[in-house]
């Protein structure tokens, strides 16, 4: 048991170190910006006095490492500076939208994970059957399609409808824009975010399902499964009772990795559906070159991503039977 605890502690320490380095990168990459930060904001035509005053206001007259520690201190006390374009606190902007992004990601995960497991196990059970081949081609297609393509196709069929020359056919099931504000009730929110959640599901189910199938098929080739086969056990008993527990570690790993992907992939989906989430905020701020907001939201995204990958690591250690029962 001790070996496991040490390994987990190691991973956690490594995760904290990675986060620290990532914060360094996010902060200092801005100083790579050609030209001066203040000049870039105010434009070439700004008077030297204005630029100097603005630089002092931003604290740019201090050396970079001092600013870094101020910024890092701010991260822990919930102060990420002020947005250039809206004059509002970055934490306030991010805080409001972070919950929305998490809601959408959790919604998509709730549909995607069970679906992927069922589809994957079935594909492994009925390997090379018509069902398996169909699922293979369909998932390959959804993996290969850009997210915004899937999103718009869903919008066409389930929300706007298709124009066949004289009238609209299909459509009208869900709103094309996932417009949620704070006063929207829970079920209404679920209804309005269904299309974005389904789009995300299409993307990640494909990955998870393929990995589930692959890891179970891999296991089915091992000697103890052959033994079970020779004993005359039924196929479903072999898969559920013998193969699945051992396949759990890789499957859990894949799920956590896909959750990490989900958090990032949400950026595009939020833009398509005009959903008020963190991804939409990030994209807006990038086009406005609103650096404090970009830094803040990048840090949040990177932190969630690293945490989820860390969870994947730790879970795969915990669910590994060889580590749980050392000789």
């Amino acid at each position, binding site marked *: 048991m001790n070996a496991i605890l040490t390994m987990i502690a190691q991973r956690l320490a490594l995760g904290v170190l*990675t986060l620290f*380095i*990532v914060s360094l*990168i*996010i902060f200092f*990459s*801005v100083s*790579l*910006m*050609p030209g001066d930060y203040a000049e870039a904001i105010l434009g070439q035509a700004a008077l030297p006095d204005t630029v100097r005053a603005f630089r002092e206001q931003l604290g740019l007259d201090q050396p970079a490492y001092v600013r870094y520690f101020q910024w890092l201190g701010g991260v822990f006390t919930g102060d990420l500076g002020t947005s250039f374009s809206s004059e509002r606190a970055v934490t306030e902007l991010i805080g409001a939208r972070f919950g929305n992004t998490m809601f959408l990601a959790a919604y998509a995960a709730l549909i995607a994970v069970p679906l992927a497991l069922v589809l994957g196990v079935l594909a492994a059970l009925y390997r090379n059957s018509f069902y398996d081949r169909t699922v293979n*081609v369909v998932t*390959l*297609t959804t*993996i*290969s*399609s*850009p*997210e*915004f*393509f899937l999103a*718009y*196709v869903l*919008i*066409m069929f389930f929300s*706007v*409808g*298709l*124009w066949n020359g004289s009238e*609209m056919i299909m*459509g009208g099931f869900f709103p*094309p824009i996932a417009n949620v504000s704070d006063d929207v009730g829970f079920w209404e929110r679920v209804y309005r975010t269904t299309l974005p959640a389904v789009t995300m599901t299409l993307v990640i189910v494909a990955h998870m399902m393929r990995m589930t199938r692959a890891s179970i098929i891999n296991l089915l080739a091992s000697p103890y499964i052959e033994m079970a086969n020779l004993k005359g056990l039924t196929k479903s008993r072999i898969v559920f009772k013998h193969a699945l527990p051992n396949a759990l570690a890789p499957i859990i790993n894949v799920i956590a990795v896909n959750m*990490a992907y989900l*958090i*990032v*992939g949400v*950026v*595009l989906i939020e*833009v398509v559906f005009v959903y008020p989430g963190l991804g939409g905020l*990030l*994209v807006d*701020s*990038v*086009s406005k*070159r609103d*650096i404090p907001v*970009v*830094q803040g939201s*990048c840090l949040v*995204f*990177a932190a969630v*991503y*690293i945490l989820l*990958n860390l969870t994947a690591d730790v879970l795969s250690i915990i669910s590994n039977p060889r580590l749980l029962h050392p000789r």
Partner: protein
Amino acid sequence: MTRFLKFMQSAPWSARFGMFVIAVYVFVAFFVPVLAPFGETELVGSSYQGWDSTYWLGTDSLGRDMFTRILYGARNTIGIAFVTTCLAFLLGGLLGFMSATLGGWVDQLLGRFVDVIMAIPSLIFALLLLTIFGTSVPVLIIIIAVLDSTRVYRLARAVGMNITVMEYVEAAKLRGEGLWWIIRREILPNAMPPMVAEFGLRFCFVFLFISALSFLGLGIKPPIADWGSMVKENAALISYGDITPLLPAGAIALLTVAVNFVVDWFLHKTSGLRDEH
């Protein structure tokens, strides 16, 4: 030549379909000035005209011919993605093989560096870098190539590791051959099959990535015809039930599916796994 033809005949229908699609795209990309009815940025009609015999797929928000721009998009979007992938392979492949051959501190340093870059989601990292360096095509190509080369590095190093322990590499080292010679003459030829397959997959990834950035308005920008930004420009048509804006997105999807089919078959072939005999 006959051997090549025989090899091609052994391809399953999915791979043949994939190769056919890729060939069509490449043909269009090369001969687009001859094929396209209008110029790339030429304003030929009023905005948002419907499909008719002159403007096959109607016109866009500025009155440019959609069909023409989709054809030009093949050249621009695929060209930029291809250059980016080549650059990523040059960088990642070279560093990966170097790591594998030299080992020691070079390997450690590059390895840790790549770990850190890969700890940040690439879309987020790309957005951060684009904020800093601005969004122009050369910057876009360099940023994505560098971010993507980390994945190439990992594969190149792993493949290279298996080759550097071979006797013939040791013999070459003892003969006093240089690093570059060993990489080019001993490692590269043996690492070719997995690297070629990876090239296909990375191309798909880069292609989707650039399209996504263009769709967000942060990648290839108008007036250059590009499939990602064309979807964004004409997205308003979707609320009238018009499928025209989906065609460029469909073109992206079709190409990536085609490349995936071919890579699938290629991997199957080169890894020696064969279902049918």
